[in-house]
C-alpha cells in the first residue's frame, strides 16, 4: 500500500505484511461506509449532514494538495466549489443536460480556473498569491449574484436533477449519499497515493524549501500550477456533488466566508493528510451541530478554538497524532542488505580533462554593489576546483548565478559545451549540475531517503529509471556517504554533520556531471571535517568533477587540483594550489594589508 514500491529484498517481511493488512482494512472500511446508507435506516437529518460532510471533504482534499502538500494558500476554494455547483445546476436545469456531463463540465471549468490562478504564481508567492485568490473569489461571487440573465442571480437555482445510471435514479437520499461516500473514498485514496508519488514529492519539496527544490530539479512553477489545478478540480467535483445532493443552490453559499471555512477545515484536521481533511471537515460540520445548545455564543467559541488549535496543534489534529506516533515509535535505524554501488563513474573517461564549465566575463550587480565583477573561470572534468576568498568576496553569489538562482548582469556561462546562461535552476539540474548549500537545505518533512529520491528524480537522469530504479539509486547514493541505515529517519533527528552528508547524497543521486559544494565544511567539527575530506577524495577518485567553495585552506589544500581566488568580486588568482597559495595578493587579501 505504501507509495514507494520498495525493493522487497530490503523490506523485512513483517513490514510488508502490515502494509497489506492495512490496505485490506481500508478497503473493508470503505465498502462498509458506502453500503451503510443503503442498508441502515439513517434519519433525514443525518443523511443531510453526511451529504454535506462528504461533499465538503472532497473540496477540502483539494486544499490538502495545494496547501498541505505544496504549501500554497488558496482562499478561493469556495469559488471553485461554486463553479462546480453552478455547472451542475445550470447544466441540468437551464441546458437540460443529464447529471454526469454537467458534473464533468463543472470539473473541467473549475480546473481551468485553477490553472489560470496557478499561472499567476509565476511572479507571486505567500501573501500576494493569497490576495489573488481572494480577489478571484470576490469577483466570482459578484458575478454569480449579478449576472442574473445567466446565473439566475440571487434567487438561486432550484430543482437540480439527480444522476441516473442505466435507468437507476439516485433520487433517494440514501443512495446519493452512498455515491458521495464512494467518490470520497476514491478521491481520498488518490490524494493519499499522490503524497508518495514523484509529483507528490516534488510538491512537498517545494513546500519545504522552494529554493532547494528548484536547484535539485523540481520545476517549481509547473508544480504550483498543477497543484492549483488539482485543488480546483476537487473543489469543482465537491461542488457539483453538493448541488446534486441539496438540489438547490444560491450564490450566497459560495462566498469568501465559505472559503475561510474550507481552509479552517483543512488546517483543523491536518492539512498534510487526507485523513486530516476528513477529520477536520467532519468536526467543523458536526461541531456547530453539537454546539447548538450554545446558541448564540458558539461561533465565538469556534473562533477561539481555532486560535488555540493554531497555537497548540499547528499541524492539525491528525498531524498532532502523527507526531505523537513518531515520538512514541520512532522509525528504526534499519540495517540494510547488500546495496549496489553508486555508478558515478559511468559519466566520462578518466583521462578526459576537457573544460566542463566555462564562465565568461560574469558580473552580478545588486544596484551599485558589484558582488561579482567580470569573473573568468574554467573547470576541467575529473578535477576538484576550489573557489576561495575572504568573506564577502562573492563566492556564494557566483555559485548562485551558476545554479540559476540569480540572473547575471553580464557575461555568459557554458556547461558541457552548451550555453546555460538563461536556464532556470531545475533546467540546469536537468543538464547535470548538482549543488549543496551553505546553510543545509533539506526537505524537513520528508524522510532521509525521500529527500534523496527527489534528487534522483531530477529531469534527464538516465541512470535512475523507473520507480524501483530511482529508489535503488537513491539508496546507493545514501550508502556512498555511509548513512544507509538512517534512511527512514526524519531529517530533524539527524546531527548537523549527517544532514550535510545527506544533502551531498541528494546531489549525488542526480548523477551530476558537476557538483557544486558551497562551504561543505561550515559548521562541522574536526572529526566531521576530516570525514568530509575523505568523502571528497573518494568522489574525486570516482572521477566526479567538483567545484567547491570553502574558507578552510587546509581542507582545500587536501583536495583541490586547481584554485580560483576572488576578492571583492574580482578574480585575483587562478592556478594550481602550490602557486596560488604563495601568491602575495592572495595572502594579503586573507590577512589584510
Amino acid at each position: 500500500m505504501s507509495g514507494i514500491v520498495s525493493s522487497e529484498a530490503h523490506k523485512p517481511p513483517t513490514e510488508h505484511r502490515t502494509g497489506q493488512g492495512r490496505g485490506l482494512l481500508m478497503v473493508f472500511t470503505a465498502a462498509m461506509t458506502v453500503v451503510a446508507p443503503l442498508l441502515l435506516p439513517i434519519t433525514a437529518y443525518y443523511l443531510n449532514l453526511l451529504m454535506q460532510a462528504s461533499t465538503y471533504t472532497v473540496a477540502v482534499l483539494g486544499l490538502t494538495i495545494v496547501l498541505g502538500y505544496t504549501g500554497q494558500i488558496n482562499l478561493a476554494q469556495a469559488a471553485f466549489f461554486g463553479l462546480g455547483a453552478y455547472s451542475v445546476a445550470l447544466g441540468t436545469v437551464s441546458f437540460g443536460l443529464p447529471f454526469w456531463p454537467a458534473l464533468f463540465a463543472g470539473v473541467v471549468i473549475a480546473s481551468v480556473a485553477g490553472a489560470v490562478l496557478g499561472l499567476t504564481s509565476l511572479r507571486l508567492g505567500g501573501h500576494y498569491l493569497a490576495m489573488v485568490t481572494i480577489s478571484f473569489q470576490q469577483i466570482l461571487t459578484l458575478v454569480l449574484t449579478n449576472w442574473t440573465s445567466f446565473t439566475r442571480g440571487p434567487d438561486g437555482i432550484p430543482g437540480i436533477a439527480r444522476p441516473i445510471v442505466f435507468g437507476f435514479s439516485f433520487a433517494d437520499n440514501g443512495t446519493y449519499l452512498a455515491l458521495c461516500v464512494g467518490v470520497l473514498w476514491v478521491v481520498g485514496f488518490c490524494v493519499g497515493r499522490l503524497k508518495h508519488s514523484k509529483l507528490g514529492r516534488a510538491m512537498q519539496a517545494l513546500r519545504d524549501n522552494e529554493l532547494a527544490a528548484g536547484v535539485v530539479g523540481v520545476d517549481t512553477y509547473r508544480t504550483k500550477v498543477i497543484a492549483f489545478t488539482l485543488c480546483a478540480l476537487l473543489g469543482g467535483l465537491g461542488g457539483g456533488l453538493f448541488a446534486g445532493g441539496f438540489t438547490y443552490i444560491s450564490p450566497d453559499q459560495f462566498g469568501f466566508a465559505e472559503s475561510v471555512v474550507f481552509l479552517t477545515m483543512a488546517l483543523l484536521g491536518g492539512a498534510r493528510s487526507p485523513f486530516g481533511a476528513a477529520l477536520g471537515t467532519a468536526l467543523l460540520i458536526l461541531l456547530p451541530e453539537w454546539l447548538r445548545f450554545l446558541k448564540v455564543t458558539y461561533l465565538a467559541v469556534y473562533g477561539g478554538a481555532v486560535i488555540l488549535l493554531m497555537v497548540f496543534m499547528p499541524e492539525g489534529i491528525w498531524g498532532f497524532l502523527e507526531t505523537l506516533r513518531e515520538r512514541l515509535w520512532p522509525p528504526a535505524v534499519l540495517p540494510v542488505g547488500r546495496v549496489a554501488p553508486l555508478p558515478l563513474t559511468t559519466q566520462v573517461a578518466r583521462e578526459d580533462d576537457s573544460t566542463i564549465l566555462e564562465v565568461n566575463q560574469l558580473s552580478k550587480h545588486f544596484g551599485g554593489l558589484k558582488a561579482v565583477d567580470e569573473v573568468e573561470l574554467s573547470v576541467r572534468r575529473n578535477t576538484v576546483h576550489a573557489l576561495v576568498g575572504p568573506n564577502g568576496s562573492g563566492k556564494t553569489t557566483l555559485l548562485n548565478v551558476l545554479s540559476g538562482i540569480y540572473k547575471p548582469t553580464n557575461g555568459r556561462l557554458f556547461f558541457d559545451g552548451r550555453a546555460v546562461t538563461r536556464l532556470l535552476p531545475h533546467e540546469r539540474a536537468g543538464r547535470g549540475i548538482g549543488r549543496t548549500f551553505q546553510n543545509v537545505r533539506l526537505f524537513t518533512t520528508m524522510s532521509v531517503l525521500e529527500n534523496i529520491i527527489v534528487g534522483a528524480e531530477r529531469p534527464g537522469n538516465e541512470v535512475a529509471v523507473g520507480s524501483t530504479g530511482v529508489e535503488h539509486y537513491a539508496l546507493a547514493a545514501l550508502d556512498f556517504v555511509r548513512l544507509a541505515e538512517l534512511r527512514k529517519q526524519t531529517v530533524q533527528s539527524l546531527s548537523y554533520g549527517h544532514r550535510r552528508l545527506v544533502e551531498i547524497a541528494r546531489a549525488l543521486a542526480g548523477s551530476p556531471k558537476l557538483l557544486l559544494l558551497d562551504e561543505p565544511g561550515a559548521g562541522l567539527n574536526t572529526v566531521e571535517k576530516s570525514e568530509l575530506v575523505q568523502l571528497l577524495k573518494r568522489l574525486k577518485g570516482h572521477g566526479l568533477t567538483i567545484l567547491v567553495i570553502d574558507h578552510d585552506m587546509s581542507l582545500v589544500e587536501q583536495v583541490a587540483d586547481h584554485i580560483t581566488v576572488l576578492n571583492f568580486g574580482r578574480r585575483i588568482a587562478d592556478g594550481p594550489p602550490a602557486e596560488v597559495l604563495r601568491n602575495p595578493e592572495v595572502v594579503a587579501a586573507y590577512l589584510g594589508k
Partner: protein
Amino acid sequence: MITCRIVLTGMLSMLTCFGRAAEPLKIGMVASLTGPAAESGLYQTQGAKLAAEEVNKTGGVLGRPIELIIEDDQTTNPGSVLAFSKLAGDKDVSAFIGPIHSTQVHAMAPDIQRVGKPMMIGGLDPQLTHMGNPWLFRCRPNDTYSARVIADYGVNTLRKKKWAIVHSTDAYGASGMKNLVEVLKRTGVEPVLIQGYTNNSQDLTPVALAVKQSGADVMGTYITFETDLAILARQLRQLGVNIAWVGSPGMVVTTALRLAGPALYGSYCVSDFAADSSPAAKEFAGKYEAAYKTAPDNFGAWTYDAVHVLALAIDNAKSLEPQKIREAILSVKGYPGAEGTYNFDQNGDGLRGYNIVKNDNGKIVFIKHIEFND
C-alpha cells in the same frame, strides 16, 4: 373501602388517559438564531412564543398545550436544511414555522415535500407558493403585492410618474425590483432609473447621484439592511434630493428610524405590519410591548399570526393528519391577524395587501390599507 380502592384505581387510570391527552403538541420552528439575520430571528421567535403562550392559556390545541421547538438555521441554506431535518426527525412534530428568507425556504422545499407536513413561511418570493409544493403557507403578503401597492400608491395617490427604483442585489431586493418594474409597466409607466447596489456598501453616493441625475420625482426601493438604508437616506438629503419615497417594509423598523433619523422624515413605506392598521394589530402591539418592552415589527407579527392560524386550523381539522390540517388552513377565511385579515387562496397565500405608513417626523403614521383580491 374496597369500593374506594376501585374508584381510586378507576380515577387513576382515567387520569393517565387524560395525562396522555395533555401531552404537548409540538410545532417545529426554523429560525435564524445566529448569522446575519440573528436580529430578525430573535423577533420572530418572540412573536411565536407570545402566540403559543396565548393559545395555551385558552386551553391549547385539541386540548393539548403547544410546545415550540426552535432550531437554528444559522442564516444559511444548508443550515436551514439541517435544522428542518432535525425537527422533522421527531415524528411528533405536526407542523412547522419557517424563515423569512426565500432562498432558505427554497433550500428546504424538497425535504418539506418529502416529509409532507405543513410549514408556515414568511418568505416573499412569489414563486414559493406557485411551484407546486402543497405544504407551504405564507403568512405575509408576497412581493407581487408589495410591488402593486407601491405602484398603486405612488402613481394613483401621489400622482408621480417618473420612477427611480433602487434595490439591493440580493434575492429580496432583486425579486422586489422585478415585480415593481412589471407592475409599473402594466400601468404604462417606464421607470427612468433602475439602480441596484450590493449589500453593505459603505458608500452610496453613486446611487444618490444617479437618482438625482435621472430627474425622477418618486423613488421606489427594496432595501435589505438598515445600515444601507440610513446611508442612502442621508446621502440623498445631502445632495438635495427630496423626492417622494415609497419603500419596502424595512424602512420603518426601529433600527432604521434610529440610524437614519431625520433623513427618513416624510417618506412612505409599504409595511405588512402597522400597529394602527386594525384592532387586531393594535391589540397585538400592546401585548408584544408589554411582554418584551419594545415595539413590535413585521418579524414578530407574522410568526404570531402563523402560530394562531395553525392553532385555529388544527382545531378546525380536529386531527393531526397533515392533509386535514392543510385543508383547514386553506379554509381559513376572514381571520383577523396582526398582519391583516387572512383569506387563504388555493396557492397557500394568506394575505394579499399591504399598509401604507408615513414617517411623520419620526412617528410612524398609518395612512391606509390597500388590498387586492386576486
